[in-house]
């Protein structure tokens, strides 16, 4: 038998259901794997006692015939952005070091209600601001993949970000699945870099209550898993209406796995011309074409579409997200929780607390956000960006007249070495060029591992669906996954 940690969530669920192994055995297998993989720096807080007691509770439920469902007994890693009661929840930031909230986020609570087991909290870019997991107060997380050749060969690679700890943990098989959050690509990009599935649902599908806010109009929770089916299983538990979140949508949660029929005959797949950008490596273009061919071969109809404002999504994002962040992060003032650095007076205390508590990238974005909202600049920057955002959303709305899903690459490159792009914020930001448009429009999207780069690193393909089109997304992603047959391992 393969190691328990090699199983997908669906397979592990079947093994638990058939009594092949217990949740406790499964959890212990992960806890021991975690110990062996600490050099990845994926976990910033391991919670073995809690994990074992949750696993035991799962076994007890199952013994009584009262298993909660497909996630009962499944060990998960939780991004440090989710507030978990009594357990470190720091957003990867010094300013929240040691913060143990007296409450549990809605999404994690729903996972525990579904019987899932918490292995610990995983690393991330500070306040989810980053694409390489290098801005964490707890140091960078490593990608378990290594380049076989090229510039990055032999070097430690980034797992992507901001959900880098989540992606690394799943790829390294020290979690069966992980929660992530995606603001501009923070689930999908690390998913692609680590050769796993990363899924961002429609804005409003998962409650944001108890998730430390980065950019409120963009943040969405989603799963990182080995397979599309696992993502569908996890999202089924994570999603749902929450009256505590005014932006949560009151729609029933469908059975996403049931939507994965494997049949996409007649499905119209849009291929946007504007995603063919200058400077995109040939292997990315090739991978994209391969994906188009595979979907066509599976019976889909390929449609050329236009999303004219694609290139403006990223600069608009770098106004909207920092603006919201500058306000969302104002509460970290050293008064009620977290770090306080006493200064000469109150204002000095604020300024020193925030200068010491926030890392460079967070400070940079708070400064940009403060500036674009300030008197005299609001119209030129913030309002302009929100108008561009309307145009981006309108582009997608127009596209849905001629297609049902859109296929693009997830990232313009494979994972790069730690230390690269560090002195060039814009080069770092460009990682999200293909993922940000869907974020700006609030649309669901998924990255599916599709192949390896010339240097032997995973690459992802990206599907986008209309709002609340998660079922279509999973159906198409499942077919793409089967066609890709990606089975490479780090």
């Amino acid at each position, binding site marked *: 038998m393969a190691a328990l940690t090699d199983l997908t969530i669906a397979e592990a669920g079947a093994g638990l259901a058939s009594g092949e192994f217990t949740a406790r055995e499964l959890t212990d297998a992960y806890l021991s794997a975690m110990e062996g993989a600490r050099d990845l720096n994926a976990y910033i807080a391991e919670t073995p006692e809690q994990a074992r007691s949750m696993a035991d509770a799962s076994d007890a439920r199952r013994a009584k015939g009262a298993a909660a469902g497909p996630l009962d007994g499944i060990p998960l890693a939780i991004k440090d952005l989710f507030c978990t009661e009594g357990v470190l929840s720091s957003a990867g930031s010094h300013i929240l070091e040691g913060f143990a909230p007296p409450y549990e986020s809605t999404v994690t609570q729903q996972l525990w209600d579904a019987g899932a087991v918490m292995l610990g909290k995983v690393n991330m870019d500070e306040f989810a601001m980053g694409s390489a997991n290098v801005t964490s107060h707890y140091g960078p997380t490593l990608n378990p993949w290594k380049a076989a050749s090229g510039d990055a060969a032999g070097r430690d690679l980034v797992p992507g970000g901001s959900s880098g700890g989540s992606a690394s943990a799943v790829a390294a098989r020290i979690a069966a699945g992980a929660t992530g959050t995606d603001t501009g690509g923070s689930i999908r990009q690390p998913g692609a870099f680590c050769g796993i599935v990363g899924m961002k649902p429609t804005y409003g599908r998962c409650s944001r209550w108890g998730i430390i806010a980065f950019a409120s*109009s963009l943040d969405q929770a989603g799963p990182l898993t080995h397979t599309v089916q696992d993502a569908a299983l996890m999202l089924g538990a994570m999603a749902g209406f929450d009256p505590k979140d005014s*932006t949560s949508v009151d729609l029933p949660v469908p059975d996403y796995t049931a939507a994965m029929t494997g049949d996409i005959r007649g499905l119209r797949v849009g291929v946007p011309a504007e995603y063919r950008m200058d400077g995109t490596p040939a292997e990315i273009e090739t991978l994209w074409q391969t994906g188009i061919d595979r979907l066509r071969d599976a019976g889909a109809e390929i449609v050329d579409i236009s999303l004219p404002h694609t290139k403006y999504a990223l600069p*608009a994002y770098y106004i909207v997200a920092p603006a919201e962040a500058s306000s969302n992060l104002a509460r970290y003032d050293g008064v009620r*929780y977290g770090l306080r650095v006493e200064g000469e007076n*109150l204002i000095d205390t604020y300024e020193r607390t925030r200068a010491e508590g926030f890392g460079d990238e967070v400070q940079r974005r708070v*400064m940009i956000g403060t500036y674009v909202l300030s008197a005299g600049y609001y119209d030129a920057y913030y309002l302009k960006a929100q108008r561009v955002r309307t145009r981006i959303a309108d582009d997608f709305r127009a596209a849905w007249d001629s297609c049902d899903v859109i296929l693009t690459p997830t990232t313009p490159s494979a994972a790069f070495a730690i230390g690269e792009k560090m002195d060039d*914020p814009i080069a770092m930001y460009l990682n999200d060029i293909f993922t940000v448009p869907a974020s700006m429009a609030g649309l669901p999207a998924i990255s599916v591992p599709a192949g390896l780069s010339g240097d032997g690193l995973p690459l992802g393909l990206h599907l986008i669906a209309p*709002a609340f089109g998660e079922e279509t997304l999973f159906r198409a992603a499942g077919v793409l996954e089967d066609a890709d047959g990606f089975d490479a391992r780090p």
Partner: protein
Amino acid sequence: MALDTDTVRRIARLARIHVDDADLAPLADELNNILGWIEQLEEVDTDGVEPMTSAVEMVQRLRADAVNDGDLQEAVLSNAPEPNDGFYTVPKVVE
């Protein structure tokens, strides 16, 4: 709209982030680099386009007026750096 060091100082003050004087100029350069890149948005014709206010097409839900929360003094103070007598405390505010 290039930022000078005085503007950076003012923005840092508004954001309540301490920046050493020596760091103002390099920070201004960094921010100008990003803002310069952002300014490509000027190319987009947005005349008559409404700014997006939310990614979901919904209106605000209203909750019933019921007292069902609060009474959490211990919980809300549990992570406070310097709680005292049921209060948060901070260095003296000069009015």
